[in-house]
């Protein structure tokens, strides 16, 4: 967490771009999620709400609609495997299986050391280059099960 500027000021700078400040709720939730270690604890909704003059309940209701906001703790890193049909037709399940084996967790779970959360995700838009895997939101294309150990090592070393 940076001590440089108050969170509310940073949020209000973003909100100034929009005709109505409520439009900044998604960017603000993203900023809050980054400050809170990748997820949104209850106090995050209070902070965002105070900055944008919204209730915490409203902020949580919005956050809960979107897949990229996490309402429970996640690992320091996210590994997300697309299992929609285009990747699926080309072996996405074997890639997901390989990550499960390598990390020792099921989709939706976090490794015991708190480092990595594994998720299956819906189409992230790289269908021509299956399987698509997002590593902290940066996409890796053409991933096969044989690539998985090296990817996990890379994510762990990325710290």
């Amino acid at each position, binding site marked *: 967490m940076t001590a440089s500027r108050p969170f509310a000021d940073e949020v209000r700078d973003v909100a100034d*771009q*929009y*005709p*109505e400040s*409520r*439009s900044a*709720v*998604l*960017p603000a*939730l*993203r900023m809050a999620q980054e400050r*809170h*270690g990748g997820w949104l*604890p209850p106090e995050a909704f209070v902070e965002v709400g105070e900055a*944008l003059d919204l209730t915490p309940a409203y902020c949580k*209701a*919005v956050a809960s*609609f*979107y*897949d*990229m*906001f996490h309402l*429970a*703790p*996640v*690992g320091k890193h996210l590994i997300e495997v697309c*299992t*929609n*049909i*285009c990747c*699926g*037709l*080309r072996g*996405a*399940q074997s890639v997901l299986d390989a990550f499960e084996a390598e990390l020792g*967790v*099921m*989709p*939706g*779970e*976090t*490794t*015991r*050391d*708190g480092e990595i*959360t594994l*998720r*299956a*995700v*819906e*189409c*992230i*838009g*790289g*269908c*021509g*280059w299956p399987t698509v895997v997002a590593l902290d*939101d*940066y*996409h890796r294309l053409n991933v096969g099960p044989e690539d998985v150990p090296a990817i996990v090592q890379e994510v762990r070393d990325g710290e």
Partner: protein
Amino acid sequence: MASDPGPIVVLDGADDHDLTKLSEYQAAGGYAQLERARAMEPGAIVEELNTANLRGRGGAFFPVGRKMQFIPPKEQIPKPHYVCVNADESEPGTFKDREIMQRVPHRLIEGSLIAAHAIDSQHVFIYIRGEYLREFEILREALDEGRAAGLFGDVTIVLHRGAGAYICGEESGLLESLEGKRGQARSRPPFPAISGLYASPTLINNVETVATIPKVLELGGAEYAKLGAPPESTGTRLFCVSGNVVKGGNYELPMGITIREVIYGLAGGIPEGRELKAVIPGGSSMPILTPDQIDTPLEHDALRALDTFLGAAAVIVVDERACMVQLGLRVAQFYMHESCGKCTPCREGTRWMVQILEAVEAGQASHDELDLLLDVCDRILGKCLCPLGDAAAMPVASYVVKFRDEFRRHVDEGACPFGGESSLEGLFAPVDQHSHHPVVEEGVPA
């Protein structure tokens, strides 16, 4: 294979130059059309787009010029007018806007600014899906460069990141989301042209559509209209080719190329000489086609005649190893996951579809339930606030109708006839993930 693949329009120059850089884009003639457009009357720009018959590339195929003409003059509705660029590309099978933003971001920006001039707007929002982080960064950099060079005039462009919701690619869901709400579909009318963003007149167009605008002006509407399959399907599309092909990827081609040419020409055919089983012509929401239909040109009228659509030009190739019940189940699971929940036919119908398809796949359904599945699809189709319900019902119904024998075999044999060997066997869907909770250990805030 067809001889000349035809002209490249949207990605023009991107193979030879790094068009993400403003200097290179300008050296290639970039932003010249913006300058020209600003010297034109807005009505003349709209006329040029109508002459070109430029249609929306996001899936709905609506004429762009007409959409602009729906925006009332400011004297009539004295509010700011907005331009929203829909960069929330989320339809499974579609990944073209991603390449446009990666390789020709300035062409998108130039198109946005021309569109803004055409409807007398000073406010552009680009709504980009949250999952496109790299594309967001490229676009942000291009915007910074363009802004610093003073190209925007009195127009502000705000780049807005989504946060993971397919429905925000639907125009009213996008507007709700951009207003800081849950991205749930709006009831229409009023349409966005009258009451869109912040209840003001709003033009919403897809990335590819907007990025085509500068080239339409450059070529002239009449010349552009000669490309592709006129009079209805003019110009090029970025065909997104995926599934069981040797070389998947985006191919920019004039509309009218046949499915066969795309699969067996450009994409190198199906690996290991396997047989084609089916093709989805426009993204996962579109009714499926069978191998006897692949000589169909990829253009609006020809596909309409086969009761399907070009959609977002996403060609998904399915080979003989895929179980069609599993394909239908996975498609239904996706739309169930992405249903915004606002209207009943979609919210309940997609769940019901998943339940029936699970039973069929498990060999626990009766023949009556195949009819029930079609009935459920019928009760969704055309009865929802937005096209998401249709997006689930149309493809699944087409699988049942066109592969009825395969569905029947599941019932008759009391099991999947693929015996665990389908290419989609056991495919995990994120909708089943929500019951899992992360293991909370030390180092992770609880």
